[in-house]
């Protein structure tokens, strides 16, 4: 007999293997990438070769004649099934295929369909488009005031109430200007003992999930229905957005998601789904739209940023005032950029207790590929700025950088810059643990000769995105076995396993025996999306509530039958009694949305800006070759506050995985554009992500002892926290070693060497 009852007293906190582990080591795991359907057509995309231009003509005649080609479509064809073919989660600004204009190199302009993907691809080379080239704008600071406008008018989607005021704005590239105002910043600067003013920049990078983006759209059996099989982090949003584009009821669109081969924010909201849906309806055949690794670089990226930060400091090293201006390079289409601008923007003054704060955060359109969510949702960019700045202040004032931070870090009970009072944010503890792991107070070996050593720490925090909704269902069958229905997408973070642990905790059932159904909008209920480390908290609560609801129903059934309620694992006995055979289910439902107060439009003030704060800190030691600028990270200590770790084994690998991913962004990843906006390195041959030789030999990871009091089982998210402190800690360690400061990412050996040369007054030319 199958064992349904728990062999363990508790499920939460067990270190267990992923539920899908054997599928993943046998090559049998179900990714959307694998899907092939009968009569399926392959779509290949013809892309813009100019950064900004009016489309004069698109000649598809030769492509249509090419052998094996089924059809070639442009936006005019798309309009036959989607009259207003513009999509996006924040703005309805992105055409499915370019309409009238192109706004970046690589933008989809036309599409070829064929049964043979090679035939489709070959035919894309036979399409010829003529453009009237327009001036283009690439830098986010220039674009904020440029006379070159990427869009004629702002078109907020209406989904987010705080973007509505932007509707109809013309002659601007600023898609969102978000601000925080607290205290009297001018007075603070006037009275300050010390004033600091620095600007930090980050580069554009790409998530490069190893399963490239893929969507297969399939016309339904009944006319006017459609199924999308898609590698998406947000099946519920895809359904809503496709239904909107088609003018259909939601229930005519079905969205199914398998395991994802990585997401990191790249597969959020809507990417290929609208194109695939339109093509399936036009051809009345299943259509697969699958990008190459190269094409992913032209689809979504991480915002490049410029962050000017000014700080007023008192004689005793307390931060009394801070001004932040952050420009986010949004690319040609908004995607979720405006939310990044707001949600990370309001934390730009850092996790510090500052009476007087002013933040301006600008989402700026440019003629580059769109920017959206990337692991950390903008937080790594702002932490890079405020933590580098913190180190520079500490150096100038000759205060130990750990001590300087402790002096200024927020404590629970103190108001953040938005006015929200801090709670359950273990900032001091995380910093303390990083320092202890680094043996911070012990003498440090600084090296000799040309090899010099240095060290640095960094700490950041993130407000959980709010307000968002999760729903879940828990079903007990008449043999007592349990199934959970959730639209959370397992993209490698082991959410299926975490969900099973949390449901199992309530029900007293071993997680390994629970089945978690993958997202299918026909059966799994709504979930906002799998993003921003939100699932553990939101879906965790929804699953908990659903399991509790099942327990309540079980008790009611037991009362009705005059039987003892006993354990959920023995639901089978009750159901068999009730229905006279092995039949029936007990279904519990749960829904969760946390309380939230939206920030005041003028001041950004809110008494409840977020349900929780996630904290991450990093310490590094580096060794730098003073003759070449080459350096090595010798030690890499990563500490997070994630409340209760639901599955400590997975939490550990989330911490090192996030930290190593951020190491790539800090040290070598960079999308390089030439002066006409052409990306030069859209492949792994020239775009380097961390490999096994790039990881430090000593990687420490730790979760501090903490409880998120409003979290499910004391938990909060962890997928991003270890990204926060990495980059600035490396920059500080390099300055600590050799006395030069890098203020732009990535921190390449070349950048270090240039800084060394500049410091000895022998700057290298830019060539």
């Amino acid at each position: 007999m199958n064992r349904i009852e728990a062999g363990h007293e508790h499920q939460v906190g067990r270190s267990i293997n992923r539920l899908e582990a054997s599928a993943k080591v046998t090559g049998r795991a179900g990714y959307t990438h694998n899907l092939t359907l009968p009569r399926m057509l392959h779509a290949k995309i013809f892309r813009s070769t100019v950064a900004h231009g009016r489309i004069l003509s698109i000649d598809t005649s030769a492509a249509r004649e090419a052998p094996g080609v089924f059809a070639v479509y442009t936006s005019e064809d798309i309009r036959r099934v989607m009259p207003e073919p513009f999509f996006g989660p924040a703005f309805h600004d992105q055409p499915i295929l370019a309409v009238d204009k192109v706004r970046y190199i690589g933008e989809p302009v036309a599409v070829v369909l064929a049964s043979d993907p090679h035939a489709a691809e070959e035919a894309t080379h036979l399409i010829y488009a003529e453009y009237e080239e327009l001036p283009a704008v690439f830098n986010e600071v220039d674009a904020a005031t440029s006379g070159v406008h990427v869009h004629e008018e702002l078109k907020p989607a209406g989904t987010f109430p705080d973007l509505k005021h932007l509707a109809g704005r013309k002659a601007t590239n600023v898609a969102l200007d978000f601000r925080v105002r607290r205290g009297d910043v001018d007075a603070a600067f006037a009275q300050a003992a010390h004033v600091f003013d620095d600007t930090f920049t980050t580069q554009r990078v790409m998530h490069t999930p190893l399963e490239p983006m893929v969507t297969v759209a399939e016309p339904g059996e009944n006319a006017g229905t459609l199924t999308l099989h898609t590698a998406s982090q947000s099946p519920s949003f895809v359904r809503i957005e496709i239904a909107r584009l088609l003018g259909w009821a939601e229930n005519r669109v079905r969205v199914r998601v398998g395991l994802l081969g990585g997401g990191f924010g790249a597969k959020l909201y809507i990417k290929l789904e609208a194109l695939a849906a339109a093509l399936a309806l036009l051809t009345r055949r299943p259509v697969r739209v699958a990008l190459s690794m190269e094409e992913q670089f032209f689809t979504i990226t991480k915002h490049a940023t410029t962050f000017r930060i000014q700080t007023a400091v008192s004689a005793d090293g307390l931060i009394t005032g801070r001004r932040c201006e952050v420009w986010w390079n949004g690319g040609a289409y908004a995607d979720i950029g405006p939310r990044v601008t707001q949600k990370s923007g309001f934390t730009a003054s850092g996790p510090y207790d500052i009476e007087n704060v002013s933040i301006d955060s600008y989402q700026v359109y440019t003629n580059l590929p769109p920017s959206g969510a990337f692991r950390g949702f903008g937080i790594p960019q702002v932490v890079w700025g405020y933590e580098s700045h913190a180190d520079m202040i500490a150096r100038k004032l000759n205060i130990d950088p750990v001590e300087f931070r402790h002096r200024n870090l927020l404590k629970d009970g103190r108001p953040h810059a938005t006015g929200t009072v801090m709670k359950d944010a273990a900032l001091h503890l995380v910093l303390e643990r990083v320092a202890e792991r680094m043996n911070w107070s012990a003498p440090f070996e600084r090296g000799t000769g040309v090899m010099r050593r240095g060290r640095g720490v960094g700490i950041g925090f993130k407000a959980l995105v709010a307000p968002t909704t999760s729903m879940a269902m828990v079903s007990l069958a008449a043999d007592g076995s349990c199934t959970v229905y959730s639209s959370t997408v397992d993209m490698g973070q082991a959410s299926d396993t975490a969900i099973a642990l949390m449901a199992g905790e309530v029900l007293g059932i071993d997680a390994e025996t629970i089945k978690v159904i993958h997202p299918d909008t026909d059966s799994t209920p709504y979930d906002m999306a799998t993003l921003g480390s939100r699932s553990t908290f939101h879906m965790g609560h929804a699953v908990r509530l659903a399991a509790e609801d099942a327990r309540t129903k079980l008790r009611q059934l037991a009362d009705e039958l005059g039987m003892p309620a006993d354990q959920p694992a023995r639901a089978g006995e009750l159901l068999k009694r009730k229905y006279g055979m092995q039949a029936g289910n007990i279904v519990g439902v749960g829904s969760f949305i946390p309380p939230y107060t939206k920030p005041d439009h003028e001041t950004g003030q809110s008494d409840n800006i977020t349900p929780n704060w996630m904290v991450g800190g990093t310490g590094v030691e580096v060794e730098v070759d003073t003759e070449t600028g080459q350096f090595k990270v010798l030690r890499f200590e990563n500490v997070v506050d994630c409340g209760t770790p639901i599955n400590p084994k997975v939490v550990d690998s989330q911490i090192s995985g996030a930290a190593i991913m951020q190491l790539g962004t800090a040290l070598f990843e960079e999308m390089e554009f030439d002066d006409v906006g052409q990306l030069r390195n859209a492949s792994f041959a020239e775009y380097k992500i961390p490999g096994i030789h790039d990881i430090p030999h000593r990687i420490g990871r730790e979760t501090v002892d903490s409880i998120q009091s409003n979290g499910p089982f004391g938990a909060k998210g962890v997928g991003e926290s270890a990204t926060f402190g990495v980059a600035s800690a490396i920059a500080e360690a390099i300055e600590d070693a050799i006395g030069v400061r890098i203020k732009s990412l990535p921190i390449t050996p070349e950048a270090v060497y240039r800084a060394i040369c500049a410091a000895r007054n022998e700057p290298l030319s830019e060539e």
Partner: protein
Amino acid sequence: MSENLVNLEFTLNGERVRATVQPHLTILEVLRNEFGLYGARESCGQGLCGCCTVVVNGETVSGCLYLAAMANGAEVTTVEHLDADGKLDPIQQAFIECGAFQCGFCTSGFLMMSRQLLEQNPDPTEPEIRNYLSGNLCRCAAYPEIVEAVKLAAQRKREATAA
């Protein structure tokens, strides 16, 4: 597209198979389209990430670059064959126990390479493990766990041989 089809006959995971394919197709495409094997996967498409690794005549190759026609008469092994006797290979078991993957998309490639390493070198040092796996990328960065898994599998295999 060429019409000169190629007739292939080769051994796939221990079974004699035939296929008639276009000459430009890679072994990866043929495994996928003709034999429904999805464990080897195209990711970078340039032989730089290792997700497509399969073994041809005892050598690991990048399936996204290796033309199917070249496999005529060869012995081809994919990740799907590792548990052919109904039991997980020690390297598969070690990957599970050490948590040596997150999304799992690169895992087949790492498994095939790691298994190859252990066949050539039953007792690899950590630098040898890193060197051997340096052509495989894991964007989730489960590298620390992968190194541990290879060590664990090596130890178990040696113990099994000694016993």
